[in-house]
């Protein structure tokens, strides 16, 4: 499949390029433009980005493969990254992961047949204070998960409703 940037994308990339003294620095944001447009940066998209920025293909490939947040293959519409690192694990991260696996009918690392969800097991996302948690498509965190909360999030996502950003008050030490 041939990928092409829209006019708006190209304008945005031009704006990004103007910010940096060297075009090489625009690789990361340009890859984001591409991932937002196509949902992933596979080989063909990497090539498109390289050609658009006039950089060596190998360089763009190296950068894209370095970061796990760039998807090197097609993913579901929503990518659910469930944390199973220490804090989440202790608070039931694996339960959430298994529940989702059962609920969605897929194993971790897989995508549902309707292309809605991809389920990943990830390491610490830095939200240990509100474990267990998961992240939706490199963006919103859903915190203090329970199986009911997960079911609701999945239902909402199916209806196109993405949870809002959540501001969590940290329990402050009582200072007299």
């Amino acid at each position, binding site marked *: 499949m041939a990928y092409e940037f829209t006019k708006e994308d190209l304008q945005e990339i031009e704006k990004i390029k103007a910010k940096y003294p060297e075009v090489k620095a625009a690789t990361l944001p340009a890859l984001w433009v591409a991932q937002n447009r196509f949902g992933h940066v596979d080989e063909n998209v990497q090539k498109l980005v390289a050609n658009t920025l006039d950089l060596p293909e*190998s360089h763009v*490939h190296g950068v894209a493969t370095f970061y796990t947040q760039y998807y090197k293959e097609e993913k579901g519409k929503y990518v659910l990254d469930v944390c199973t690192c220490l804090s989440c694990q202790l608070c039931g991260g694996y339960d959430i992961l298994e529940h989702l696996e059962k609920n969605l009918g897929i194993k971790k690392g897989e995508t549902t047949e309707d292309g809605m969800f991809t389920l990943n097991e990830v390491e610490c996302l830095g939200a240990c204070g509100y474990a267990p948690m998961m992240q939706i498509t490199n963006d919103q965190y859903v915190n203090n998960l329970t199986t009911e909360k997960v079911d609701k999030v999945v239902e909402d996502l199916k209806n196109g409703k993405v949870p809002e950003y959540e501001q969590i008050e940290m329990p402050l030490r009582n200072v007299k």
Partner: protein
Amino acid sequence: MPEVFIDGERYIYEGEQRLLQFIQDLGKEVPFFCYHPSMSAPANCRQCMVKVGQPIKDRETGEYEVDENGDRVIRWFPKLQTACNMMISDGMVVHTQETDELVSRAQKDNLEFILINHPLDCPICDQAGECPLQIQTYKYGPEGSRFEVKKVHKPKRVQLGPRVILDAERCINCTRCVRFTDEISKTHQLTITSRGDKNYPITAPNTEFDDPYSLNTVDLCPVGALTSADFRFKARVWEMNQTPSIDITNAKGCNIDLWTRDNLVLRVTPRFNEDVNDHWMPDEGREAYRIFNENRISRPKQKLDNEQVQSSWNNAFATISEQLEEAEKSDVLFVASPHASVEENYLFSKFASLTGYRTPLFTPHIEEGKGDGFLITDDLAPNTNGCRLLGLEEKSASEIAKAVKKATVVILLGDHLVDRGILTSEDLKEKFVAAFATNNSETTKIADLVVPITTAAEHAASYVNIDGRIQRTFPAKETKYTNRRLDFEMSEGRLDRYGTSFDNWVTDNNKVDCLPMWEIMRRVAEQAGLEEFQYGSGREVMEEIASISEPFNGVSYEAMDEQSGIQLDSIKPTTVQS
């Protein structure tokens, strides 16, 4: 003069210098993998760590602070520093692994890290024997491994390009190959993919590593991760003899080493020469080893009843003399060759002039547009300038063809004019054609007499490159008539030096029955009654050239060896794009 103290010794230095390079130039050693003098220093192998400090200076008086013993007070860097990207500064104090326990411990631990995922396949690895990782592990590494779990597995036998194969598990991610394509060959074909312990160098998806200089990455690789598709598994390094030589596939004259075993040239690697090729050479030049081994002419051949048959040396010399005597002097044409050395061409033209024939002609072998301004040139011959300086007549292809058509006796020196499309077999019919040549070709097939001569790998001879630099080769493989143990010009390998005669396999068929041009010209000249061709080696020929030919004044094998080639004044070097 600014000064620097390394392991307690005081050295003075000039200009900006990298610490690691400075230490190496002193003849001392600090282990390293990723550093290369011709490329940037990213300091990512972390092997060259040393302890570095700077004396404390009073800013107002500019005096060094001293302790109660009168010694300078040193402020050490809080952590060990990588020597490769550390620039030397005045008064710097450096402790290497030789004087500092912490440094040697750090280097040992770093090696343990590097070796964690490195496979223990040295016995089947091509790099073994010339592997910096292997050598430095012996010298500085830990005795054993404490790593008890499974190593990370990565792709093996990846065909990166037509000439280079990757074994990602062996890679230590020094990025030398990536930097080579970025900084030297500028094709930007390689990158490091993925990260952490899973990373390795690779091309962009669906692209090939077809860089015309790709095999340099194999030399650069400090481990066996990149290997040559051609040389893989052919020979162990320690079984081969290494002989300095010159690339004869183009006019740049890259300095090379020929690696031989059992009188076969098995591979060609670049040899450092700052003024010519630095550390690099084009891939094409490495293919040249085939010229030395394959399709060689062994023993003279003569045409009888339109069929070439094996002849003898005496017969060959007698035939040439007969033909030269019978023909009118004006009907005899000598065609010299930019592919042959200065010495060979000189003898050819000396013979022609002493016997009153026309000065030999030659035609340059040019392929327009092939050159890249780096190490590949339009000129496909190694000695075009040498022919010019000897005063041979330079002719275009059509002029040569015309001259050949007029002659009845044509003597060719190593230039395959039929293969080059300058002559057709029709042109050479009804003539007596003698070819002095190294390899069989369409041209030698047509010749009435084929006299095998030595290649650049079998004699010491010199070539003048495109920039007017004269450089010479050494004999690397024996012919039927030479002996490695008797010829001081020939290199000795480990097995020659330490082995018994049963350790070294010798296949007599690998020795070609050919003679150097000076030997042949002596015999031919004797038949013609000339005594002026008494040479024992190319060295003596060059002495004579230097004494009588203005452009070659001051040239000798000794001088070429000392200065790794001599820039001749009469040719101005072309400007090289860097």
